[in-house]
C-alpha cells in the first residue's frame, strides 16, 4: 500500500490538502458535488466503525479493505475500487502511521505442525 506523505502538496493549489471538500477525482467544484462527497465520507466513517483503520496495517488488511469497499458499494449502489477507498481514507488518516495491532502478532506467532482434521481421514478409502 503506497501511501503518500501527509502533505500532498501536488494535489491542488498548494492548500492544506486535508480539506475535506477536495475530491481527488472530481472535476467540478459545484456545491452538489461537494454534498455527495460529504455523503461518501460520512458513509466511509460509518464503515470504519466496523472496519477500524488500524487493521489496515496488519495481516488482515486486504480483507478489511475488501469489507470497506463492499460497504461503500452497497451503500451507494455503485462501484468502488479499493484504491478509491484508500484515497478517501487517506484524507482522514495517515495510514502509514498506524501501528499494526498487537493482535496480529498473537495469531501467527506459535509455530505448529500442519494437521488435517480427523474427518478427512474417516472418509478415506472411497
Amino acid at each position, binding site marked *: 500500500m503506497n501511501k503518500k506523505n501527509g502533505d500532498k502538496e501536488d494535489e491542488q493549489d498548494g492548500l492544506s490538502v486535508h480539506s475535506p471538500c477536495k475530491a481527488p477525482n472530481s472535476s467540478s467544484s459545484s456545491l452538489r458535488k461537494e454534498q455527495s462527497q460529504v455523503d461518501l465520507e460520512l458513509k466511509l466513517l460509518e464503515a470504519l466503525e466496523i472496519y477500524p483503520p488500524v487493521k489496515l496495517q496488519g495481516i488482515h488488511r*486486504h480483507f478489511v479493505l475488501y469489507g470497506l469497499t*463492499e460497504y461503500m458499494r452497497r451503500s451507494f449502489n455503485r462501484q468502488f475500487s479499493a484504491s478509491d477507498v484508500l484515497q478517501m481514507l487517506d484524507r482522514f488518516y495517515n495510514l502509514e502511521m498506524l501501528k499494526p495491532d498487537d493482535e496480529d502478532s*498473537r495469531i501467527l506467532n506459535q509455530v505448529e505442525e500442519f494437521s488435517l482434521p480427523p474427518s478427512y481421514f474417516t472418509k478415506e478409502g472411497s
Partner: protein
Amino acid sequence: MARVIEYQNLVITLLLLLNFAFMTSGRPLSVLKTISCPDTNDELFDRFSLGSIKEGPSPGIGHGFEDKAPLGGIKLGASPGIEDGYKPTRNKDGHGHEFGHKFASIQTLGGIKEGPSPGIGHKIINVESLGGRKDSSPSPGKHSKKKRRVKGNHRSKKLTETFQKEKKNMGSSKDDSATDGDKSTANRRRPESNSNLYSDGEKVLAYHGPRIYEAKVQKAEIRKNEWKYFVHYLGWNKNWDEWVGVDRLMKYTEENIQKQQALDKKQGVDKNPKSGRSTQAKPKILNDVKVEKEDAKSSGAKGKKRKSDSSTEKGNASVEKPVKIQIPSTLKKQLVDDWEFINRQDKLVKLPRSPNVDEILAKYLEYRSKKDGMMTDAVAEILKGLRCYFDRALPVILLYNKERKQFQDMVTDNVSPSTIYGAEHLLRLFVKLPELLPYVNIEEDLATRLQQKFLDFLKFLQKNQTSFFISSYDGSKDSDSSAGRGKMNQE
C-alpha cells in the same frame, strides 16, 4: 499575479472549508489539521464522530457526542467536575463532584441519571448503569434497582447502610466488616484507621455492574475520610477508568477470582439484555474499540469474555467463526494424499513449484475477469489477502515437520513463500483459513460473500487439479533448487 490568484483561491477554499466544518459542527479549525498521529489508538475512537474527526477530547464528553443533550437527561451544568476533563478535582465537595463528572462518561454507555446525586444514590446506579441500559426516563437509583439482580440489590443496600454507618462511626472497627456484602473477605474493611488497603499499581478485582473485573489501582486518595481508588479495568478502554470505594474492590486472590467466575457464569445467559449495548450505535464503537484493541492486552479469561460479549451483542457486526469453508471432496482427497506422501512415504514436494501460488492466484484473477468483466476489483483484493496470509502462515502453520528443513533451504531471507510453493500448500491454507479469519471483524453478509468467493476459488483449483497439483512427490530429500526456477518475477 499568480500570487494574487492563489491568495484568492485560498480565501475561497477556506470559506468553503469553514462552511463544511460548520455543517458537521465540528471544531472548524481542527478539521484542517492532519490527524496524522493519534496518541493512542484508543483516542482515535474517542474523537470519533460522524462527519469530522476532532483532535483532543471535547470538553466533558470525551466520546465526542455532537449533541449536548445526552441520551437521558443529564444536566451537564450540574456537574462542575466536567470541565476538568477526566481528572476529578481534589476539593472535597463530596462525591457528587467527581461522580457528577463521571456521569458524562458513563452516560454514553448505559445509564443516565439526573443531576448529581448524593454519593449513595449515585453509587447504586453505578452498579447498574453500565451493566444495563436505562431508557431516557431517569429513574432514581433505588427504584430501578429493584428490577435488577438480587446481588446488585443486595450490595447496594449494603452500601447504603455502610455509608450511613460510615458517617456515624468514623472510628469504629471491625464491626463494619460484618455489614460488608461479603463476609468472607476480610479485606473489605472500612479505612477507619486511614490505612490504605490498595496500593498504586496493585492489581485488584473490582465490581462493575453485577460482575467483577480485573483492575489496577492507578491512584489512591482519601476523600471525605474514605479511601478512594482510581481504577483502570484491565483490557478495557481507559474511558472506563473511575473512582471507586473500598466496597467495590477486592484483593486479587484465588477466592475472589472464583467469585468472579461464578458471577461470570451467572451472567452468562443474561449478557445480552443486560448490557444493552447492542442497541446503541455509539456504544458499539467503544465495544469495537474494546474488543479489538484491548483484546490484545487483556488477560485471558476476561478478554475472551469481552470478545464474545460484544460479538453476541453486535449481532451482524462481528461473528465468531464467520467463514466456514467447504473444501470439495476431490481436493480433500488431494490433501490426504499429500499427508500420506509426506508423512508415510517420507517424500517431499519438489520445490520450487510451477505454477507457484502467485501464478495460480493470477490465473484465477484472469479467469474471473473473463467471466465477470470489469468487477474484479474485489476479487483482486481478496487474492491479495490470501497471498498475504499464505506468506505469513506458511512457515508457521502450514508445514509438516518433515518439510521444515526443505523450507529453510528454499526460503531464504528475501524470498516469499508464494513464489516457491504451489497448490499443495495453498490448499492447506484453506484448511486453516477459518482460524485466521475470525480475527477480522466483518459483517455477516460479507462473510457469506467471502465464503462464496473462497469456494469459487477452490472449484477453480479443482478444475485445474491435474495441472496445478503434482501427482507424485519427490522421494529423495535433496531439494533441487536450480532446475527451472521459473518465473520469480511475480512480485
